[in-house]
């Protein structure tokens, strides 16, 4: 990078004045000098105030290659960012200016931009920038809004843009978390993160705030987590200016301790307050504001929460990785079996569901033989609110969501429920769930169909049950094993399940 240095202009010189005039003007010069000093000081103070009041906006970029932060600039009322700077840490990138045209090459993908135009061409295809393209000091800048649609074309994978908070996730890099409150007195709030975290921790009266500026922490299903406890009533997730913030509201002074290589953060009462567990906080009980940045505080051993929150007492969702053991399912390629893909999908779906606060049981976690009857029995015994069977296929494109194919009349006899049509009573709710899942896929522009299928054990499950068959979006079968695609699919399913949670939870 080349920097141009400009000469300073902070001093003035007075030359060529006669001594008489000099003496006569000495008094007024002092006054003038004082005025100038006051003005300069005022302007400086005002500028400092302005800079302090409006902190520089940033875009935090999270990817498997690197996490980094880029400054944003305002042009025509929009936030802009340098495209080359966004792509540079991710691969080989070069840019070339030719008059009004600015060409960018990222690995083998070429983009063609024109100054003042709100459209560009990437790999010969038109791309909408949602704002004019500018070149400043040789840097091509584009509206931040355009990153969501433009980057997948360069990177060949999905990106998730949180525009309002200036956070960009490239691929499946999100760090999810769950929170559970122990039944100790005073209670402890335990956060489990899917990857190590190292937040900045700050306490203030009535709250403890963890700011994640380097980690790709993503929101749980609901930004406000309530625990039904007077001492630690809630935790709130928010995002702003490239950082995620989790604020724990507490009625007593609390501290954060880290364990499990930074994957677990336990919020517990300070030793002073824990000796007086009946203390009900407020301003007086809160400790003086303290700030602890960088390395986590001294680690205290954190046992697993003795009693999880009420919602985790039973599994809300049962995820079934179909096939397994001797049953390979479809041979997707000479080296890829359906049973292996379904396990990976199940793990991903469990993570997505749990990050939304949905306790999830995965029926098959390894390459085990599990009969269809056993799967149905486990699902029924768990009395879960939803059973989701996962399949993978090379046939067709996108995703199919299935419900059970049952006789229209039903087969039940008196008080007994037929095993082959046990799904009958729950079928309407299964169809509602399947439609919700399909709608979520449509939102994400993934081809989707809802169908019925003679697919066991859907018909043997007494609660709402669906099956999701995942096929690649194009002809590239390897997409089935791509973590990005798997997360795209499972996050859609999890979002739909979270959205229908109330209906599913109220099912008998």
């Amino acid at each position, binding site marked *: 990078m080349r920097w141009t240095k400009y000469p300073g202009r902070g001093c003035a010189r007075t030359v060529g004045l006669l001594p008489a005039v000099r003496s006569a003007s000495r008094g007024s010069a002092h006054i003038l000098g004082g005025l100038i000093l006051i003005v300069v000081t005022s302007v400086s103070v005002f500028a400092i105030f302005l800079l302090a009041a409006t902190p520089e906006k940033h875009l935090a970029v999270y990817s498997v290659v690197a996490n980094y932060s880029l400054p944003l600039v305002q042009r025509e009322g929009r936030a802009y960012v340098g495209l080359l700077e966004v792509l540079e840490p991710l691969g080989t990138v070069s840019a070339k200016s030719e008059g009004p045209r600015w060409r960018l090459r990222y690995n083998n993908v070429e983009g063609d931009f024109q100054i003042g135009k709100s459209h560009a061409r990437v790999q010969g295809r038109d791309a909408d920038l949602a704002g004019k393209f500018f070149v400043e000091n040789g840097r091509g800048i584009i509206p931040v809004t355009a990153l969501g649609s433009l980057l997948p074309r360069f990177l060949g994978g999905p990106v998730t843009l949180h525009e309002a908070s200036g956070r960009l996730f490239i691929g499946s890099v999100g760090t999810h978390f769950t929170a559970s409150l122990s039944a100790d007195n005073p209670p402890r709030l335990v956060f489990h993160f899917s990857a190590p975290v190292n937040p900045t921790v700050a306490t203030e009266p009535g709250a403890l705030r963890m700011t994640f500026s380097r980690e790709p922490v993503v929101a749980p299903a609901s930004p406000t987590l309530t625990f039904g406890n007077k001492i630690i009533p809630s935790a709130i997730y928010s995002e702003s200016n490239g950082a995620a913030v989790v604020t724990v509201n507490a009625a007593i002074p609390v501290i954060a301790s880290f364990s499990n290589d930074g994957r677990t953060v336990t919020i517990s009462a300070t030793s002073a307050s824990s000796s007086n567990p009946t203390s009900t906080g407020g301003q007086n009980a809160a400790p003086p504001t303290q700030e602890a940045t960088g390395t986590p505080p001294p680690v205290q051993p954190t046992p697993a929460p003795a009693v999880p929150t009420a919602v985790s007492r039973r599994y809300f969702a049962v995820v079934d990785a179909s*096939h397994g053991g001797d*049953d*390979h*399912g*479809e*041979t997707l390629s000479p080296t890829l079996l*359906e049973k292996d893909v379904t396990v990976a999908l199940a793990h991903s779906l469990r993570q997505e569901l749990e990050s939304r606060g949905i306790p999830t049981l995965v029926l098959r976690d390894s390459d085990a033989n599990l009969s*269809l009857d056993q799967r149905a029995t486990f699902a029924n015994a768990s009395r879960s609110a939803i059973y989701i069977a996962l*399949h993978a*296929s*090379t*046939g*067709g494109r996108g995703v*199919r969501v*299935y419900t059970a*194919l*049952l*006789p*229209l*009349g039903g087969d039940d006899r008196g008080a007994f429920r037929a095993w*082959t049509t046990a799904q009958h009573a729950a079928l309407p709710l299964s169809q509602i769930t399947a439609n919700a899942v399909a709608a979520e896929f449509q939102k994400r522009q993934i081809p989707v*169909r*809802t*169908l*019925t*299928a*003679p*697919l*066991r054990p859907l*018909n043997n499950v007494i609660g709402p049950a669906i*099956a999701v*068959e995942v096929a690649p979006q194009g002809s590239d079968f390897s997409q089935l094993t791509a973590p990005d695609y798997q997360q795209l699919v499972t996050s859609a399913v999890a979002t739909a399940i979270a959205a229908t949670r109330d209906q599913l939870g109220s099912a008998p």
Partner: protein
Amino acid sequence: MAVILRTTIPRHLIIAMAVLLVAVLGLSVYAWNMRKTAAATPVASTDTRPLAPPVAGPTERATLYVAHDDDGTLRPEFALIPLPSGRQQRAEELLRALLSRYLDKSSPHVLGPGADIHSVFLVDPGVAVIDLNGAFANTHRSGVLVEDLTIASLIHTISANTPGILKVKILVDGQERDTLAGHADLSSFYDVPAVNQLATQLQSAQ
């Protein structure tokens, strides 16, 4: 050596031997090529023959519900098929006509080589039993949608052209089997109205 050959073996014998040698070499090369060609030719190509039409019965217009893998749909196709008068033979011929469509080179829903139907039994009241051969199930592609299409195609074709069928059971080589190819359940009877609903769903690409 040449001197010995000229003195001991007559000239015409040498020419005859040379001709024979060239012929042997030529045939060897030809046989080698034939062997390579035979090895490269898939066995399936010998099995994808259209099934023989029935020997008796007037030709009738029937609707076959043909699965299309490209868009995962079931599409009605009209065919003129010689159909016998007996309901059972009629049902068998319908399914054989459907299979011949699938075993054709331009099949939109490829079945494995040798796939066939042993027989169809119509059992009162309203039950049809389709007995597939082992090759049909053993070589069927695995997948929820692809198996769903096969089941819907067979049952919807037979029920649409043979009134009165309410339930269908599918056997393989006369035996019960858990699934067709790992997904579609074959352990239960199929409810025809339910399968007809499925067929309607499958006739739409969305």
